[in-house]
């Protein structure tokens, strides 16, 4: 006896009801449950679909799919940050390192002038405004994508939405950072450090708000073979 297409839909709903919201994991678990249900039926053909399903689900333990979901999230976060890091590394090798160095030298020079305090705000302000602008854009883009397909993908959320939340946290620190601006530019060593931090922030934000979203399609297709199916 085989699991029917309508029972498969029922299994998708079942995983959703048990807190599995992402399509890739739902698909994997649905196939697992279906296989197990079919083997339970072989031994005990009289069981109803629901009974066999519940018997199979029990094997996941008292927490059900929770652990699988949690670990999947961790694994996907790891992949996202690995990708971010590999993009970041490119900015420290030829040819992009020239741009990184230029950015750093510019910040360092500006923060040593007598207008350093203003430049500090300008450098931070430009980044903050751009980041906010991009997170609004990305959120809008994400909503549009969801109108086309309602399937949820964890990596897609990381690319379009998590990036946005980092931007908000970043902006919320504006006041704190402005309070300390005098300290940051008080001596050459600290100016060096401040210029380095700004450079890194510009790069990380540029990668997570521009480079990775632009490559979203390609990334999603390599991560999820079922994405284009």
């Amino acid at each position, binding site marked *: 006896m085989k699991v029917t297409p309508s029972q498969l839909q029922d299994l998708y709903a079942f995983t959703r009801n048990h807190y599995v919201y992402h399509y890739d994991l739902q698909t994997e678990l649905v196939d697992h449950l279906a296989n197990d249900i079919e083997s339970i039926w072989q031994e005990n053909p009289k069981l109803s679909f629901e009974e066999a399903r519940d018997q199979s689900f029990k094997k*996941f333990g008292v927490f059900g799919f929770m652990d699988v979901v949690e670990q999947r999230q961790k*694994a996907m976060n790891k992949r996202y940050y690995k990708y971010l890091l590999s993009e970041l590394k490119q900015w420290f090798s030829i040819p992009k390192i020239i741009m990184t160095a230029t950015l750093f030298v510019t910040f360092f020079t500006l923060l040593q002038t007598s207008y350093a305090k203003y430049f500090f705000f300008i450098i931070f302000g430009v980044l903050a405004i751009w980041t906010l602008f991009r997170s609004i854009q990305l959120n809008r883009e994400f909503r549009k994508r969801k109108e086309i397909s309602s399937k949820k993908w964890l990596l897609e959320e990381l690319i379009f939405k998590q990036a946005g939340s980092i931007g908000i946290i970043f902006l919320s620190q504006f006041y704190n950072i402005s309070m300390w601006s005098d300290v940051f530019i008080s001596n050459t060593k600290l100016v060096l450090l401040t210029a380095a931090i700004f450079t890194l922030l510009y790069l990380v934000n540029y990668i997570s708000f521009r480079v990775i979203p632009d490559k979203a399609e390609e990334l999603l297709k390599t991560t999820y073979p079922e994405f284009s*199916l």
Partner: protein
Amino acid sequence: MANSKLYKGSLTTIILKLLNESDKMYGYEITQKVKEITKGELKITEGALYPALHKLEADGLLEVEMKKVDNRLRKYYKLTEKGNKETVNKLNELQEYIKTMQILVNPKFGLE
């Protein structure tokens, strides 16, 4: 069933070894295969298998492939080149572990 805690640390090695022997496998197939080989002595729990597979995938040791089987999508895992190398390392580690345990449990070996 034997003490599953003892097997816990070897789950990754078991998965890698199985994938090393066949071209590609899906999650359910792995649980069944282990049950079959060990004649039911070792049962990999679902709650442990999938996290282990996803971690190996994130680490770049496994790659995935989707196929439509019986009207549903099935996710197959297979070893990457990095995964092949890691399998050799992990198996060596496990062999060493088994040797050490044998010496500890059965000290006669050490006296010869």
